[in-house]
């Protein structure tokens, strides 16, 4: 049984807002999700009751704060089916991708090596690696797309064939096309070509919407971000195999990540602490823990089923408008709820502004995926994306707004 969206919506304060007489219709969860009261309460409890720093405090507040923080790690580990020692908290998914880029890629790849990524990556899962390539002289290869916006696995096989690919960075779910990539198969292919290859996936758009088992994906590391999964801003995580983390040199250094420090050097703490330098995001971790609780309670299978159905309705509604092109796969089995579209003759900025005037929030632009935009032959698209609090009632205002933009801006 799907959950009751109108009731659920009451848990999200910003959605109660009225914009010039229009109900706020939030279709931009792929950029950032709304935050439920339970998450705000969890952060508030920390600030109002246990406000102090974590680790090594001998007084009660400090022990409570440590329990909140480490408890969130355990919750997240259970949620994504990973080892808690493999959960490194970061400020966002971008930092998580940079962590693996600095601590593994930059310390292992050089001339003669290759890194494989895709043309659909978010800049977060692309630029840290091309930047490293520029400094270190390894080659970057890109998996291209099939006509329906999926990764071309035949092309991937060719790119892997010479065995020089030592690192793979691939998104689990595209924030523009919605495509759900078969990360496990790509990992198998990469290891078949080079058994030592490290596979990193960007799970930012997956974890909020699909049941995810890090163990079952069979990869080495995985980046996620809190603010897209009903959690607060300012927290994300790198999820990794503990053995990989153990073998890596630290990235950020400073307090809390050391075992011993002398004037000239330092020895590192155990994982995951070795990768968490400085005072961590304590309130944010407590908030993320509460977000994970809520997602678990709603049930990731139920969430996926609900969003799958709604995404189908969204695509049908958009595709039914004259002059509207929808990007990404039509097969709902391989796509999540981020739906990019274009209105012929109307610039996405104008579509977005028109929708905004009736309280409909969509994102317009390149969505931090400039190489993908180029593949689509486009400078920018509009994108509507759904989450647990959206339902079919949100679609008519979207369609009406687009129709209005068409007649308003038609030349």
């Amino acid at each position, binding site marked *: 049984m799907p959950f009751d969206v109108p009731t659920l919506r009451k848990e999200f304060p910003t959605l109660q807002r009225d914009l010039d007489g229009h109900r706020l219709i939030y279709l931009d969860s792929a950029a950032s999700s709304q935050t439920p009261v339970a998450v705000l309460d969890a952060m508030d409890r920390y600030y109002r009751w246990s406000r102090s720093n974590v680790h090594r405090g001998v007084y009660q507040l400090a022990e409570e704060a440590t329990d909140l923080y480490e408890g969130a790690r355990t919750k997240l580990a259970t949620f994504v089916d990973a080892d808690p020692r493999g959960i490194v908290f970061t400020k966002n998914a971008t930092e998580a991708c940079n962590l693996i880029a600095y601590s593994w890629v930059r310390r292992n790849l050089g001339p003669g090596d290759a890194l494989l990524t895709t043309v659909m990556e978010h800049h977060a899962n692309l630029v840290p690696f091309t930047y490293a390539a520029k400094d270190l002289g390894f080659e970057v290869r890109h998996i291209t797309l099939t006509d329906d916006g999926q990764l071309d696995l035949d092309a991937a096989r060719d790119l892997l064939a010479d065995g020089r690919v030592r690192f793979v960075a691939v998104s689990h779910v595209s924030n523009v096309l919605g495509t759900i990539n078969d990360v496990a198969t790509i990992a198998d292919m990469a290891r078949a070509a080079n058994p030592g290859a490290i596979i990193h996936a960007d799970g930012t758009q997956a974890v909020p919407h699909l049941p995810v088992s890090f163990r079952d994906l069979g990869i080495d590391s995985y980046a996620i971000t809190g603010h897209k999964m009903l959690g607060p801003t300012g927290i994300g995580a790198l999820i990794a195999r503990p053995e990989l983390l153990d073998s890596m040199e630290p990235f950020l250094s400073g307090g809390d990540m050391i075992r011993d420090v002398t004037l000239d050097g330092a020895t590192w703490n155990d994982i995951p602490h070795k990768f968490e330098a400085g005072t961590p995001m304590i309130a944010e971790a407590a908030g993320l823990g509460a977000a994970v609780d809520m997602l678990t309670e709603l049930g990731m299978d139920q969430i996926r089923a609900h969003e799958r159905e709604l995404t189908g309705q969204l695509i049908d509604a958009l595709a039914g408008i004259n002059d509207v092109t929808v990007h990404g796969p039509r097969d709902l089995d391989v796509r999540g709820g981020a739906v990019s579209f274009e209105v012929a003759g109307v*610039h996405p*900025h104008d579509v977005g502004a028109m929708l905004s005037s009736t309280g409909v929030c969509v994102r317009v632009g*390149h969505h931090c995926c400039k190489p993908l*935009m180029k593949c689509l032959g486009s*400078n*920018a698209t509009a994108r509507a994306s759904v989450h647990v609090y959206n339902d079919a009632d949100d679609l008519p205002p979207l369609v009406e707004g687009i129709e209005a933009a068409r007649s308003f*801006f038609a030349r």
Partner: protein
Amino acid sequence: MSMEDLYQEIILDHYRKPKNRAPALDNEDVHVHHSNPLCGDEMDLRVRVVDGNLDAVVFDGEGCSISQASASAMTQAVIGRELKDGLELAEDFRLMMHGDEPSRADDLLDGVAFQGVSKFPVRVKCALLGWMALRDAIETYQSGASAHSVTHDD
């Protein structure tokens, strides 16, 4: 955020029937190309100078209604002006986009219709695109060159 603040009728007229929009200009003295990679806008501006005046100004490009309409209104406001005067008017428009009252509202002609855009920070750069291209074209001409390409920041 009301549509009327942003999309005044004058703006829509310029968007629907742009003035001085053309892909080429006879006897052009300067051609500048401006782009804003973050929203994908592209603008070509061509200028012919006669006796130190902006004899002809044409634009071409791709972008949202605001950027296209603003460029159109700009050409009308500056054609026939001395180069220095064109620069001053561009500065007046720029300040208006940052919230100031325009000191030369009459000279901006339809350009004043864009005053409301200043309330929409994300769109300010759209309205400025044509004007910044003009400024660059004049400065390029003054420096003795004939072409220039600029990539704008967000």
